[in-house]
């Protein structure tokens, strides 16, 4: 016998002070921020307080909005995702790719497109499109 069930649990995720600053700049100014580690110089995007070298990456710097496509994938009915390293950052992050997958190629230049209506959250960045 199979019994159907489901779990729906609402949560209030605290983004944290560093990510909140990133999300505020994204929402209010349409800018991408990274965190720079004063000890090793690494720029993390999205910004994190904890640098891998053990120091705190406390300095926030603007990165992008252009960047490099590191990798990408397409899922049927779900669109394409890309791993993008914004200019000025040492790390890449995953977001949506807005172009047809046939045109995509690792190493190509892409550009952030910000959502027209922004309400707080990573979706305020609509995704990346191939730089023209």
């Amino acid at each position: 016998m199979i019994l159907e069930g489901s779990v729906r649990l609402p949560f209030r995720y605290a983004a944290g002070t560093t990510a909140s600053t990133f999300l505020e700049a994204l929402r209010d100014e349409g800018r991408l921020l990274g965190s720079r580690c004063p000890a090793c110089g690494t720029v993390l995007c999205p910004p994190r307080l904890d640098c891998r070298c053990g120091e705190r990456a406390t300095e926030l710097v603007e990165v992008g909005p252009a960047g490099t496509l590191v990798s990408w994938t397409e899922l049927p009915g779900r669109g394409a995702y890309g791993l993008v390293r914004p200019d000025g950052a040492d790390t890449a992050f995953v977001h949506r790719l807005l172009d047809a997958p046939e045109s995509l190629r690792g190493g190509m230049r892409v550009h952030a497109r910000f959502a027209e209506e922004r309400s707080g959250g990573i979706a305020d960045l609509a995704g990346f499109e191939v730089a023209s």
Partner: protein
Amino acid sequence: MSVAVAGVGESGPALDDPRSIPEIVLEAVEEALQEARLGFDSVDAVVTASVDLLDGLTASNIAVTEVVGAVLKPETRIAADGLVAAIHGSCLVRAGAYETVLVVAHGKASLGPYWELTSWALDPIFLQPLGLDFLACAGLQARALAEDDAAAEQRWARIAAERRRAAAAHGVAPACTAEDVLASPAVASPLRRESCAPLADGATAIVLRAAGPAEPGVHLGGVGFDLSPHALGERELTEWDGLRRAWARALAVHGTRPTLDVAEPSCVFAYEEDLFRHALELDPGTEVSPGGGLFAGFVPVAAGLSRLAAVVRALRGPGGLRAGVAHGTWGPAGQGQAVAILEAA
């Protein structure tokens, strides 16, 4: 002191097993104890591996406490791949804390939409809102490898077909050809439906016992594990460098570099075999997944422990094999890596 694998038991892999998780687990535990010629009263401690998210309830180990004989006993639960549970169990024995430790892992993919569920194991601020899951993460990793390797997709199709052929007799999916793999629909390009191991239900149990180094049987030797950063963009995506580190630790514990007759990697996707071979600098003479590996059926969480069981069976077989390696992985695109050396004494 050495750690012997005194018994192994498995249930599955099976497609949509109608039994409950405790029933599936019980079958594996009974078989392992029977092989070890031991009863529950001889088990000093239990290490289980399970993941709440995949079982649809919290404290998923509580559901199996009775069937693993952990009532009134020290039980540790690992929320990672089952091979990590075996590693922790071996540490308990090696430390002299317990003589006999039962290690059990289970997974029941038919419980829910597995890949969809993995979305909940991703960062809730930056990744979950995008609808990302482990399948998409694997697609990103595979693409990073294929982009500079025109032959990659053909090679992966041949690997998948070879594993499926080897697994057809005992697995949950029929044999298929490399052409079938390449003709199957993309699920997360460049990954195709048939280049992914089929999901299944099952459980694996092993009994670890303190033993003298020369005591006949299969011994669990060097072990190691490692975690990479969660974010794909903070890793070198074209490598499993976490596995390289885990392997270096296993070799350091082992003391020597054994000649591996057999390797049982936890490869859910054919491309992962490239990463595995590369990380271990595998000798061409090592036979990889002679029974098709996870292409016989990918049981989440139990996968790595089932690979250990497969190596034990190979070393006990008539082939005179001396040493093998079992591998487990968990998290997105191989974030967690575990590896264990097994030797016939």
